[in-house]
Structure formats: C-alpha cells, structure tokens
C-alpha cells in the first residue's frame, strides 16, 4: 500500500486513506457499509454485480465502490436518492434472473441476495421473471456439492475461487448474454470433471447456486432407529468454528459444549476423529521412517520421496488428476475420518460386543470433500461402508438448532470411550502445518528419544498463513536402531490451498525443490478454512480459528500422538504395531489415476 494519503469525503465526512484504497474500503473505515455481492475479501475484484454503486459528485455515472480506487478531493455519497434507486433496481434485475423460491431454498436465511432484497424491500414482479423456460439445470450427482443454475446470479465468486485459491478451474463462465452460465468442461456433472469437492465455492457462493449435499435427514433417521448404534466422530477444526453457527464470535473453543450437544441430539456414542489423527501420526510417521530407511540404508532407487500427507481428500483428488505420476509419493494412510470408520466397525464393534452391520458411523467435518471420500469404493475395509454419513460444521449447527437446544447454556462434557481420547498433536491437524508439526513431535522423539528441539513443542516455522512454508530439522544423537539417520537434516514443506500445492508440486517436479516430507491441505488455512465451515470465512476469521486451535493444543495435558493412551492400547490389543499387516488392511489405501482434463 502506498505511503501517500488521499483525502476525500464520504457522505460529507472527511477521510484520509492510502493511495490505491478502494472506495469500499474507505467507507468501511468510516463504518459505512456498502452492500456487495460479487466482492469477496479472498478474491480479486470483479465489479460485475454492481450493487456496490455509489455516487461521485460531478461524475457522469455511478461507480462501483469495490472496483474504484479513491482520488484526491473525491466526494462520495453512498446512500443518496440516485444511489438508492439504482441499487434497488439492480437488486430487482438480479432477482428477475434468480429462482426466488426462497422458502424452499437450502440457503434460506443465509443468502446474501435474500438479505439485500429484504433490506431494500423490493416489490413483486417489477421485472419479468426470466428464470423459467431457460436451459437451467440442477447437478446433484456429486455426493458433496449441488449446483443449481436457476439460483446463480453469475457473480463469478466460484469461478475466481476455483482458479485463484485452488488453481483447479473446474468452473468457468460459458456462453453469453442471457445464456451465460457457470459451467464445467462441456457442462459435465461435477463428479465427472477435475472438481476436487473442496467446497471453497460453496463457502463463497452468495446465494443457493452451490450448496453442500445435505445428509441431515438421513442422520435423524438413523438416530431414531432403535436397531442402530450410531457413533459420531468430530474433526479437530469443527470445535473452533461451530460457535459461529450458533451466535458466537469466530475463534471460540467449544469442544465441551459441542460434545454435550451431540449427546443431546441422540448419538449413542460421541467420539473424536482426533483419536485416529493421533493414530495417523504413528502410521504415517512409521511409513516416512521406513521410506527414509529404504533410501538411506538400502539405497533403493524405487523409494518415492518426498512423501506427502494424505489426510485431505481435496488434495488426494487433486493429485490424482493433476500430478498422477506422484501418486506413489502420497502416504498410503487413510485420512483420520476413514481410519475411524474402519476401526469403528471392527475394533470398536468387537470391544462393545456389537455387530458391524448394526453400527452407523456419522462424521462431523469442516469439509465437503469428506462426503466424496466416504463414498469412495476403497473405503469399505470393514466389509461395510466405513463412514455412513458425513455432515459439515454448518449441518451440525442446523441439527442443533432443529433440536431446540440452547447451546450457550450447555455444560461441558467429555468424549465417550473408546476412541474418544486425543492429544494436542491431533487437535492441530485442523490448521495448516498441524500434521507436519504433530509428525515431527512424534518422529523426532521416536528416533532420538528426546523431545523435538522447539520451545514448548511449538514448531513455529510450520505455523501461519503463508502459502508454502518450509522447515528443516536436523536429527542428531539417534537411538541405536535409527543410527542411519544421524546427521540427516529432514527437509519439510507445508502448502495450503491447492493453488499453492500446485506450485509446490511443480517445483518438486522441476527438480528445483527437494524435500523429504510434504504436508498439503486443500483449503486455505487448512481444515479450519474448509469448505464445510461456517459462512463467511475470510482471512481474519481463519486467523481466529487458528489461534483457537493452537490454544486448545497448549491447554491439553498430552501433546504428542504417541502418548495417547488409547493409541497405545489399540496397538497392544488389536493392531499389533504401526504398519502391521492388520494396519495395512484397515488403515491404508491406494489411489487412482484420473483424467487430467
């Protein structure tokens, strides 16, 4: 931002802002809200919806506040008669091309266009309704995302999200004029194209054109089925975001209340995905050490390094499409969600004296891609669908509201057992860099017998919101069995959002970057910024959720995955050892090469 200040007035109030500031931002500084639809903090300016128009004294036409930088001596009016009339007309025109069947819309009550229509009290049938009779279709074939063209206002937030944040560009603007629509390649269904199901578009769609596919009714049905034992697991990032659905400010840690709420909803057992996150660290850490051993000791040229994480189903589908030649590099570990499902219907069933077919596993995830992941044919290691239903953080908020639970007054309670125990290392899975940090805490100690050499176990180089982060950890003073690693500097990289993942993988492919271990999370900020998280999500909100996650970690008595007592127990009682034959059959998977275009 320029150091030169520009002076202007907005609604006759003088303000000075740095050169290059938009009128929208300058007005915000004075606490004037200018309505927007196509604008989003995370994305480049498009200026196509026009609802942010303002009047410049002496100007010929109204100007878009989001797309116009301030200039010296400008006099702006954000709410003059001409602005109000124009804005109302613009909203009415948008509505004339929008399926305004609001009461039956999934986004009813959480729709930016609906709010504006309400704010401006638009009348009925001002313009001819242009929705009917057009070639508008609903694509509900994906298990994750529903795309309904009749509700689309063509603000193109989704197109910019898919391109700028994710580098996927599964969505583009196609056709023109009144035929213009947001389309995939040849208008194929989302399941048949390069879409990773990350749901970042869903998180940014101002209307109901892109929504998650909901399974709330199915989950109510199984809860009410007396023959089913319904187990619910909650992902780390949900506990720091669920509050936003229920009247709290971003960044509130509500683990205890959330567990109580889940019990009141009627789940038979409320368990934690964090348990299998800890388990993932043991499995993935062992896998990494095995690969390093093969490379260093056996000099095996076929060993695939760098190894990448595999927790993020958006990342998995992305690499299957985009860098299929690197699939051997991806850890074979299933994601914590799927490990949990496989164990719930085997280990848990056995311990509780239940039959696998009588257990239903529900996941609460910050993610829409998890819905797709649970549907993958590989994810049936228990002999049944390992995870039956996946709900987003938003859907959990919806269920709590439907049940009439006064969330704010709930007491805290603890997760049930077994598979409810977790450590701080598992909690930080929800933030970018968290899996790397958790893995380093465990692997370093496994190999050297000492704690990882960072103050208070906080591996700060892998934290924060930079797109690609790097860390190097020198391994010294190894235990006898790991002597071969002595003196090796383990080189790690962390990427979040697929656009950054693409850059990182391209650098690996070009041979300009050399790492042993790479963590990739498909969403900006990691899972805490997932496509299933409360709307809105932006930089500020992501930072608050991240602070809450690291706060949760610091507050826990156990902060290293290998210290999780239930993890120790499951290896003793059931799995044997990390990467054992049984582990492989239940906790590991394989990947598919998918078409690149």
């Amino acid at each position, binding site marked *: 931002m320029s150091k030169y200040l520009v002076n202007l007035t907005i609604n006759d109030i003088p303000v000075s802002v740095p050169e290059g500031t938009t009128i929208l931002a300058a007005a915000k500084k004075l606490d004037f809200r200018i309505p927007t639809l196509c604008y989003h903090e995370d994305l480049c300016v498009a200026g196509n919806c026009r609802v942010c128009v303002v009047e410049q004294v002496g100007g010929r036409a109204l100007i878009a506040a989001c797309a116009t930088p301030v200039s010296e001596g400008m006099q702006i009016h954000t709410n003059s008669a001409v602005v109000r009339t124009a804005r109302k007309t613009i909203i009415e025109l948008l509505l004339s091309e929008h399926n305004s069947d609001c009461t039956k819309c999934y986004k009813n009550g959480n729709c930016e266009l609906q709010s504006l229509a309400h704010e401006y009290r638009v009348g009925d049938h001002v313009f001819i309704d242009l929705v009917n009779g057009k070639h508008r279709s609903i694509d509900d074939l994906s298990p994750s995302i529903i795309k309904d063209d009749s509700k689309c206002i063509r603000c193109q937030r989704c197109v910019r999200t898919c*391109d700028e944040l994710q580098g*996927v*560009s*599964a*969505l*583009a*603007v*196609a*056709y*023109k004029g009144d035929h213009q629509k947001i*389309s*995939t*390649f*040849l208008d194929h269904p989302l399941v048949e*194209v*390069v879409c990773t199901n990350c749901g970042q578009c869903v998180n940014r769609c101002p209307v109901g054109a892109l929504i998650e596919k909901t399974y709330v009714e199915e989950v109510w049905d199984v809860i009410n089925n007396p023959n089913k034992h319904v187990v619910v697991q909650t992902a780390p990032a949900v506990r720091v975001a669920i509050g936003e659905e229920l009247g709290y400010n971003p960044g509130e840690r509500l683990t205890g209340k959330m567990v109580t709420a889940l019990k009141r909803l009627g789940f038979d057992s409320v368990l934690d995905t964090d348990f299998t996150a800890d388990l993932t660290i043991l499995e993935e850490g062992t896998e990494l050490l095995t690969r390093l051993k093969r490379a260093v000791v056996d000099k095996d040229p076929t060993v695939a390094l760098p190894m990448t994480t595999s927790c993020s189903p958006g990342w998995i589908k992305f690499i299957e499409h985009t860098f299929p030649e690197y699939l051997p590099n991806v850890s074979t570990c299933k994601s914590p969600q799927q490990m949990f499902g496989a164990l719930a219907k085997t280990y848990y069933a056995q311990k509780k004296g239940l039959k696998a077919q009588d257990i239903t596993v529900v996941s609460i995830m910050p993610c829409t891609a998890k819905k797709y992941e649970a549907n993958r044919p590989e994810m049936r290691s228990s002999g049944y669908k390992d995870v039956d239903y996946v709900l987003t953080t938003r859907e959990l908020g919806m269920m709590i509201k439907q049940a009439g639970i006064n969330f704010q007054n709930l007491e805290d309670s603890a997760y049930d057992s077994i598979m409810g125990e977790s450590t701080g290392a598992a909690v930080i899975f929800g933030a970018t860099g968290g899996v790397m940090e958790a893995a380093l805490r465990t692997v370093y100690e496994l190999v050297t017998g000492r704690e990882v050499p960072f103050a208070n176990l906080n591996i700060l180089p892998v934290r924060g919101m930079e797109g690609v982060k790097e860390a190097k950890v020198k391994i010294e003073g190894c235990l006898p069995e790991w002597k071969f690693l002595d003196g090796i500097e383990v080189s790690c990289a962390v990427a979040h959002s697929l656009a950054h993942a693409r850059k990182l993988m391209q650098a690996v492919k070009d041979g300009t970057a050399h790492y042993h271990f790479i963590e990739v999370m498909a969403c900006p900020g990691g899972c805490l910024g997932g496509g299933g998280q409360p709307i809105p999500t932006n930089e500020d909100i992501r930072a608050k959720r991240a602070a809450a996650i690291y706060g949760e970690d610091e507050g826990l008595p156990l902060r290293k995955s290998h210290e999780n007592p239930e993890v120790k127990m499951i290896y003793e009682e059931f799995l044997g050892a990390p990467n054992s034959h049984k582990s492989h059959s239940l906790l590991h998977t394989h990947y598919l090469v998918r078409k*690149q*275009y």
Partner: protein
Amino acid sequence: MADVQQIIKDVTVVYGKERKALMPILQAVVKTKNYLDDQDLISIAKALDLSAAEVFGTASFYTFLDTVPRGKNVIRVCKTISCHMAGKDEIIHAIEDTLKVKTGQTSVDGKFTLLSANCLGWCHKGPVMLINDKVFPELTAEKAIEILQKYQEED
C-alpha cells in the same frame, strides 16, 4: 481429418504458449474442420496449460466457434429484424425443403449445416445468408436454392 496437433503447433510458433494464443488456435481449428470436438478442446487446454473448462467457456462464448459437429458448409441465415421483414422466413423454408433439414441440423450427407444468425450487417441488402465466410445478399427463395445447388455440385 485435420491434424489439430499440427494446427496448435503452427499457431503457437507465432503466438507462443500464452493464453493469448487461445483465440487464434480456436479460430484456426474451426477454419479447418468447422467445429471443435471434445478432444480438440482438451488438446488445446493441454498445450496452453489452461483448464479444459476455461477453453470450453471461451469457445462457447462465440457463436462462430462451434463445439458441436457441423457440416462441410455452414449456412447462417440472418434472423434479425431487417432480414425478417425482407422475408428471411421464406428463404429458410426453401433451404429446409431443399436440404431436408430443420434450422440447427446437419444434412445426412454431412455437406450442410443450417443455422440462423444475428445481424450480419447487411440490412440494406436483406435477406442475407452466409455460407462459411461468403455473404449472399438480396436473396429470393430461387436464388438461395440455386446457390445451394452450386455448392452441392462442388464435389
């Protein structure tokens, strides 16, 4: 069959492999084989490192960049008001009868596709049609049929 790979190669020699090469490539392919099929769009996306959706989005914006199979000769009859008043319906009926197709369809022998078009800028000499790049103004039903017969005799 036109070698689309070769077309891409030739155009990128001139325009590079930047996004700006997209339009020239799309135009060159359509000029050679009259339309872009799915595989062409994918090849172009691959060559320019663009997403296939973006290439399709761009092509679909332009009426003259067809993404569905077209005949050897594409007839576009102007449907805008001046040509309408000058009798374009009669022209269309005559062509439909001659070629045994409806507007939007391709003849069985693959020689002709009949389409309607927005204003071609020949309002003073309507009704008008375009066959590939060639304009035929001041049409009558008889003239239109005569023109088609010449194209039919060509090969």
